[in-house]
């Protein structure tokens, strides 16, 4: 393998990984705070994809404005989804699996609703950033570099909020015993909703960054869901930082496995890695502070 290819593989891995990290950290956040495993997370991405499509392509708004509007709308949707379909279930004793079931149902529902509304076609979104950065022999379009940078920024911001602010502490308290949180006066219902909104924003950011590359379709989010889950587990359940690190790792593993084995086995390699890790270290690779 040449040095150029090696560098390319690393860069590719980091870029794919940054998306996995965005998706995974959103799931981890929700799981960490509410113990809800949200199977409809991918559909939030998908909705964000259609958001960008609407604002940036159909209405022709400037990219930044379109992105902002999309994120706001997806956050709102996330909050509404939480209020309407998840919050009522959390009051039940056996909610954990109920919620999994409900979000799976929601995920199919949203997918097919999107299909009815927008049709099955894959719709393209033009690159937000044009041009290709050429460093030596490595060529990388700015769009891809932007994915990496923006993802890092957004995740950093989230980590800051989570570990350095009062809101973060409240979120983590609610995570661990909602009734007790209620007893000290934390409006845990609202906190849950807020967390969902933040996680939706992460999903939305991922989708916005991705949409020019993968095009928008009703299935856009579904394909990232399992990877997102894998990242959450690898990182140590519910750990935000762990999920971010695991996202990059998984991206790298995939990128390198394509180079060494053929493409169709790369996911097998990634998932075998997951199972091996679980076997050896059930607490995850980067288990640290739980969110």
């Amino acid at each position, binding site marked *: *393998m*040449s040095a*150029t*290819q090696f560098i*390319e*593989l690393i860069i*590719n891995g980091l*870029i*794919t990984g940054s998306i996995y990290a965005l998706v995974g950290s959103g799931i981890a956040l929700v799981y960490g705070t509410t113990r809800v495993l949200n199977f409809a997370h991918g559909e939030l991405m998908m909705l964000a994809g259609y958001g960008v499509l609407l604002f940036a392509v159909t209405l022709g708004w400037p990219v930044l404005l379109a992105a902002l509007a999309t994120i706001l709308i997806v956050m709102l949707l996330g909050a509404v989804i939480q209020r309407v379909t998840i919050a009522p279930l959390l009051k039940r004793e056996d909610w954990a699996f109920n919620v999994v079931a409900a979000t799976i149902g929601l995920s199919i529902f949203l997918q097919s609703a999107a*299909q009815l509304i927008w*049709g*099955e*076609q*894959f719709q*393209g979104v033009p690159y937000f950033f044009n041009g*290709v950065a050429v460093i030596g022999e490595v*060529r990388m*379009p700015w769009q*891809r570099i932007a994915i990496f940078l923006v993802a890092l920024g957004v995740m950093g911001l989230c980590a800051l909020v989570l570990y350095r602010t009062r809101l973060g502490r409240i979120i983590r308290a609610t995570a661990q015993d909602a009734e007790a949180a209620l007893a000290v006066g934390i409006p845990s219902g609202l906190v849950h909703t807020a967390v969902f909104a933040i996680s939706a924003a992460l999903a939305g950011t991922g989708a916005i960054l991705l949409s020019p*590359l*993968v*095009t928008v*379709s009703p*299935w856009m989010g579904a*394909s990232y869901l399992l990877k997102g889950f894998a990242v959450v587990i690898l990182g140590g359940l519910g750990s935000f930082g762990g999920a971010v690190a695991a996202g990059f790792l998984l991206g790298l593993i*995939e*990128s390198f496995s*394509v*180079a060494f084995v*053929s*493409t*169709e086995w*790369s*996911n097998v390699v990634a998932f075998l890695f997951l199972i091996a890790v679980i076997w050896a270290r059930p607490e995850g690779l980067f288990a640290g502070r739980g969110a």
Partner: protein
Amino acid sequence: QEEITIGAVGPLTGPAANTGKDHRQGLELAVKDWNDGKGNYVSQNPPKIKLVMEDTSGKPEVAISAAQRLITRENIKMLIGDTLHSHVTLALMELAPQYNLPILSAEPVSSAIADKVLSDEERYQLYWKGNWNSSGYGTAVHDFYKWAFDNKTLDPGDKKIAFVVEDTDYGIANAEKVGELFKADGWTVTSTETVPPATTDFYPQLSKLREAGPDVVVSVFTVANSGIAFVRQLKEQALDTSHLAIYYPTKPEFLQQAADVAEGTYWAALTFSSELNPEHKAFSDRVQAEYGNPGTYSTAHAYCTMEIALRAIDAAGSTDPKAIAEQIKNTDHECVVGRFKFDKDHAVQSGPDFIPVPVAQIQGGKNQIIWPENVATSKPQ
């Protein structure tokens, strides 16, 4: 005179639903024309036809369920199916002997279907495949390149070829066939990368390709956005290679979304083009008038498939399955996409004399046929 019911199954929902809907339009239009007295009749007294179509979601077990429903509930005398998927067709063709029902598939191309027919001709005597075999592409691609190297349009370099194909029978069979023909000419296949359908990130594969440095890259996808992404990323990585695309440029959204990066791409097969072919344009306009959207290759192919079915029933003069199958076998029908004539393997034949498989190039943001020379609209650039 009693009405004869024909059933059809195709992907009306799921990722291939767009194509399935085109099929439905084509099938409906043919039946409508037939019943309205505008058909291409064989006899003086053509039967009236009713069409019922069911969804498969692109899944074999669903298709079987749907077909059984058509058979037992609607009492269909013939089945068009699957309209798109080869793997679904492989399951459906079993119904022909089980239910003594003539089955004609529409767009599926897999050579595996023809192989299966040849493996037990007796059993599959009622099954017919309304499209050519996937190996047809391979021959066209190989013959085109040979022609281009011979007349110095392209340089064979180190004689290395690589494939990036979708992980379906369609993609893999094409890669194998083209690879075989090139190897026979002394070429080496550096790699065959199979990616899951609808993949849109090819950077890891491109990185691998750059290392191998092939002279020809052939890509096969059925999902247009895979193709769009591949062509764009190929350009970003500025790989120094000749690129030929199979299938996906037939999708209108390909040129709409990739015109800026697809310049110079060779592709096969430009079987339907409203811009270049007045006959196709007329058909497309017809569809436009009827359904409010332009016609595509899939619409036209479904239309022709239905015409074959209708003419066979008409010619058979009864709904006797064997008689209908016999008439399908005798088909020699000139339709909008070409001349339909079945081969011994129950598949439609391809090539200049039958259904042409022309190679095109995107020039100035437009498709031009560049090979074979007799139908070319432009020279390769």
